[in-house]
């Protein structure tokens, strides 16, 4: 059974949701405090949502200096699966593990609503169980979720198939409707929507299981 590290920063607030979701798809969650310098024995790492270090300066700006981030960088460089959700996505961009940046939403409103995502690449560790073009209902919950990058970066994203998920109806002004991106190798993925909050049809959607099941290494058949 896969062991998935869930990094906890001061100010994280989705770590229990993430851990529950990991258990839900058959893996074992392990909390890792941000001051740890090692991840221990894990098969994947999740940086959960919240407000790491109070989001002071910029979301993710200070979290990248937490000691655990060196271990996350090494793990990613060795090909280990790394997933940043919401604030975790912001941390990964600030740490330079993912291209681009997240700025304030167009319209300056905090957005908390279901969104429809369109799967744009299936080569990443998050979308390997999904179908190209598949629609997934996953909620968002953020103020700074508008994805931005310069033209050169954007062309690279397109050329390397690094745009992993797009919004069907762009809620926040993200460039090219981008909801999630990966690194070039596809083992580091960040997204603003919260798949860990879409784990049960009783609560609105179970589409997050497709994403997180793939991330923890379940075969697509195991969830069917």
């Amino acid at each position, binding site marked *: 059974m896969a062991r998935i590290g869930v990094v906890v920063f001061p100010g994280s607030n989705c770590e229990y949701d993430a851990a529950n979701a990991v258990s839900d798809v058959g893996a074992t969650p392990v909390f890792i405090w941000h001051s740890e310098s090692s991840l221990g024995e894990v098969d994947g790492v999740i940086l959960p949502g919240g407000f790491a270090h109070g989001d002071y*300066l*910029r979301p993710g*700006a200070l979290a990248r200096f937490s000691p655990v981030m060196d271990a996350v960088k090494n793990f990613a460089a060795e090909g280990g699966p790394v997933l940043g959700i919401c604030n975790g996505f912001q941390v990964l*961009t*600030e740490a330079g593990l993912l291209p*681009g*940046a997240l*700025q*304030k*939403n*167009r*319209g*300056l409103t905090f957005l908390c609503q279901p969104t429809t995502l369109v799967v744009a690449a299936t080569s990443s560790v998050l979308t390997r169980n999904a179908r190209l073009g598949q629609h997934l209902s996953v909620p968002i919950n953020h103020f700074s979720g*508008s994805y*931005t*990058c*310069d033209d050169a*970066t954007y062309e690279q994203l397109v050329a390397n198939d690094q745009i992993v998920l797009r919004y069907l109806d762009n809620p926040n*002004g993200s460039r090219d409707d981008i909801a999630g991106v990966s690194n070039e190798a596809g083992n580091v993925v960040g997204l603003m929507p919260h798949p860990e909050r879409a784990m049960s049809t009783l609560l609105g959607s179970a589409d997050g299981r497709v994403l997180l099941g793939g991330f923890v290494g379940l075969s697509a058949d195991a969830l069917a």
Partner: protein
Amino acid sequence: MNYSVIVDVTLRAGIADPEGATIERALPALGFTGISNVRAGKSFRLNVEAASAEEALSQATAIAQRLLSNPVMEDSVARLAGE
């Protein structure tokens, strides 16, 4: 010498600035017309111990680029306070 340095951080040209745009739209209601290109940003003040003003500014510039701003979407300028 101890130098007082101010670092200004603003969104890069071409990056949408919803905060600046919202402020700009509010100005006519107060009777201010003819105001355009409002950009919102941040300002930091720091005291830097250095041998010269140039050294203080180069330290502050490095801090601005590595921490105070995100070069993907923001520009930063360091200047001596009072100049």
